[in-house]
């Protein structure tokens, strides 16, 4: 008897559900003047000075501003600093934009800039950006809207480092008073402020009423839905639940081609996919430099471009192709034909006495693109004699094994190219980079050259130095550039207007979010 009554109730509930399913019209979804962002991943932490992941950066970019920013050709542009001047090879003067204010209405002053940079420099903050800023000898505020910086030594990339969101300017007064906690809150002077956050589910951002760009067309509300799955994000774009999103899979344009109201914009970046080769582990075949060189030669970068990216990207170099420099184009890795490279690789392996080295490629499961690159790489280097396995561990395990323990042969990832050619190659000096000390061999001559190039202004002398550096980088075969990484921004052309830079150097995908416009 109990059973049947229960059944009856459930039956009723079921019928009611069906009634709602067929009877009611769909509620109007997006409220007026809202645009919805399909965000592929949740942030990994709130602290903009600390988190080193794109999923975090893209959210910070909605809320925070940096002193400088960049344009399509990677040239520096004013940001929170209305103007700046380099008064000597080591000194800079920044004029803070009058009218810029945090979302609580307080004007951005020199003390916020100084406090933010000092916070990044403070070892207790554990910011990875400390080294990229160079060594600050003195930082002062002659008045509330002027900041002067004195570096200990010339550092060409200093300004470019300020254009990355990790150098976000935070409200230091509130931080010191305790009313703002940067490790659990976001509060900046950027176009939006956080109204509501449900972890792994959604964000609701509202326009910062005190934002200095008064002509910004950005809507009152920007909501973000966290949708990690590519297919689910595409479906959401099709049925109009989201207005824009990003993909890393190059086939997205192909898959969305039939939808006439969806546009896909590729954004070239200075970022490239890379392989870290473990030179330091005694147990890895790559301890022998000849095996590393053979591996580098045997890699078929064109096949990766053709088979993983359908030919939509380009082979890339340690000095990213996007900067228009050809410094690395003439090394044998890039200049020789595939046949020549293969036979050279076999010779090197024979010389090393290891005609068939056994290696494992580690490609995290975070992005299916890694797995695909690994499989194409596997096929191409097998032709030179390598015996190859692939493992795809979760991100945390990959990070631990590669950067902390150094227990791997070769691993796949990508490298941010930032906004100056000298920034990314600086990582080839493990004493500067720190993060790759577990696998990167220290080459003193290369370190010296990299140190020199930092203080050289852009020009012919620097370009010659870059060629010299490329040769050394290629010779070490320790950290390999593969192909450029392109970001794809997909949006509904019938519901919003977007503005996206053709090229971006700092994963600053949504730098023009203030110019997005709702068409509803």
């Amino acid at each position: 008897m109990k059973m049947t009554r229960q059944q009856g109730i459930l039956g009723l509930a079921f019928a009611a559900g069906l009634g709602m399913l067929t009877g009611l019209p769909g509620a109007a979804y997006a409220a007026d003047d809202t645009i919805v962002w399909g965000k592929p991943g949740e942030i990994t932490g709130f602290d903009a000075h600390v988190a080193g992941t794109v999923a975090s950066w893209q959210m910070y970019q909605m809320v925070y501003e940096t002193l400088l920013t960049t344009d399509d050709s990677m040239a520096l542009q004013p940001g929170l600093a209305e103007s700046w001047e380099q008064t000597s090879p080591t000194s800079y003067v920044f004029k803070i934009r009058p009218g810029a204010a945090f979302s609580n209405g307080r004007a951005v002053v020199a003390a916020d800039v100084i406090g933010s940079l000092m916070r990044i420099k403070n070892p207790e903050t554990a910011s990875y950006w400390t080294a990229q800023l160079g060594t600050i000898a003195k930082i002062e505020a002659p008045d509330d809207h002027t900041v002067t910086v004195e570096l200990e030594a010339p550092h060409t990339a200093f300004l470019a480092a300020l254009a990355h969101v990790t150098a976000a300017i935070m409200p230091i007064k509130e931080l010191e008073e305790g009313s703002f906690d940067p490790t659990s809150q976001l509060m900046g002077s950027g176009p939006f402020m956080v109204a509501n956050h449900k972890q792994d589910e959604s964000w609701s951002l509202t326009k910062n009423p005190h934002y200095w760009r008064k002509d910004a067309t950005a809507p009152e509300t920007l909501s973000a839905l966290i949708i990690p799955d590519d297919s689910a994000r595409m479906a959401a774009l099709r049925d109009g639940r989201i207005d824009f999103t990003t993909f890393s899979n190059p086939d997205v344009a192909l898959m969305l081609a039939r939808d006439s109201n969806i546009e896909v914009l590729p954004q070239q970046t200075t970022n490239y996919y890379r392989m870290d080769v473990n030179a330091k582990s005694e147990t890895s075949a790559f301890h022998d430099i000849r095996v590393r060189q053979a591996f580098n030669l045997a890699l078929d970068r064109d096949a990766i471009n053709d088979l993983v990216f359908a030919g939509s990207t380009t082979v890339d170099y340690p000095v990213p192709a996007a900067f228009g420099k050809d410094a690395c184009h003439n090394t044998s890795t890039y200049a020789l034909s595939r046949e020549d490279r293969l036979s050279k690789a076999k010779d090197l392996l024979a010389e090393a006495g290891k005609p068939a080295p056994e290696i494992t490629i580690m490609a995290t499961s975070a992005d299916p693109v890694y797995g695909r690159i690994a499989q194409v790489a596997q096929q191409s280097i097998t032709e030179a004699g390598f015996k190859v396995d692939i493992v795809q561990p979760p991100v945390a395990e990959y990070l631990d094994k590669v950067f902390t323990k150094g227990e791997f042969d070769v691993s796949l990832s990508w490298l941010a190219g930032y906004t100056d050619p000298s920034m990314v190659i600086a990582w080839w000096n493990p004493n500067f980079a720190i993060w790759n000390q577990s696998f990167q061999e220290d080459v003193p001559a290369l370190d010296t050259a990299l140190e020199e190039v930092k203080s050289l202004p852009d020009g012919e002398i620097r370009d010659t130095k870059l060629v010299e550096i490329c040769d050394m980088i290629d010779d070490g075969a320790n950290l390999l550039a593969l192909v450029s990484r392109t970001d794809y921004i997909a949006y509904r052309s019938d519901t919003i207007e977007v503005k996206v830079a053709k090229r971006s150097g700092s994963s600053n995908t949504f730098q023009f979010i203030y110019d997005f416009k709702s068409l509803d």
Partner: protein
Amino acid sequence: MFSIFGRIDRLSRFGFGLLVFLILLGLIGPYLPLGDPMRIGAGPRLSSPSWLFPFGTDELGRSFLPRVVDGIRATFLLSAVAVIITAIIGTLLGMVAGFFGGVADQVVARGADILFSFPAILAGLLIAAVMGPGQISAIAVISVATLPLFIRVVRSVTLGLASRGFIVAAQVAGASPWRVMIVHILPNIIGAVIVQLTYALSIGMIIESALSFLGLGGQAPYASLGSLLRQGSAYLTFAPWLVLSSGAVLSAAIMAVNLTGDAVRDALEPLKGRSLT
């Protein structure tokens, strides 16, 4: 096993036939002229099914049919190995618990309870995280998830047998406890174990493919049916044949095991119903 064939119905017979077919296909697959499952760029990327590529090609231009056939073998082999290992361990533990009772029983039964109170997939996620993704951790996950099945059943059957006359007689006659367990108890529980084995095999296949689907099973370019599904799901709307073909074959394989299992159970534990009309 074939003697019961006449008694089972058409659906079960179909299931058994399907199972034999799939296992044979998995075994002789590499010798059939289906194409190389590993050859990248064998055809255009993501092309739809054709005479040349009956299941289409994947995102690296590999023919998908031989990959699916490889996947059948991988999925069956891994699950079967895992389940057989588990059955041996579980039977041993269950017999010890049921026969000796006391502390041994408490420890084994409580242990089984703890294992049983984890939802299998959560336990799977944890184990795969600790051991790192791969075939070994997939086997471990299947074992942990199915071990309680064997322990519980074997323990309760052994408990029932332990007080029976012939067991007591053997003990009185001076047979060692291990001898009693192996000679007298084991033959009487083998039927129950086989029934559990078929359940466990189907659970094992589901777990293996779920783990592979989440990226925690065997590693590329090794293909299990679950990892093929994961691979194809990125192209679900554009190249649906990847998910549909591997999903259909996976479901068919599990169904074949389930139907065969039903037949085995009906034969070993007959239960005659009668009609109302």
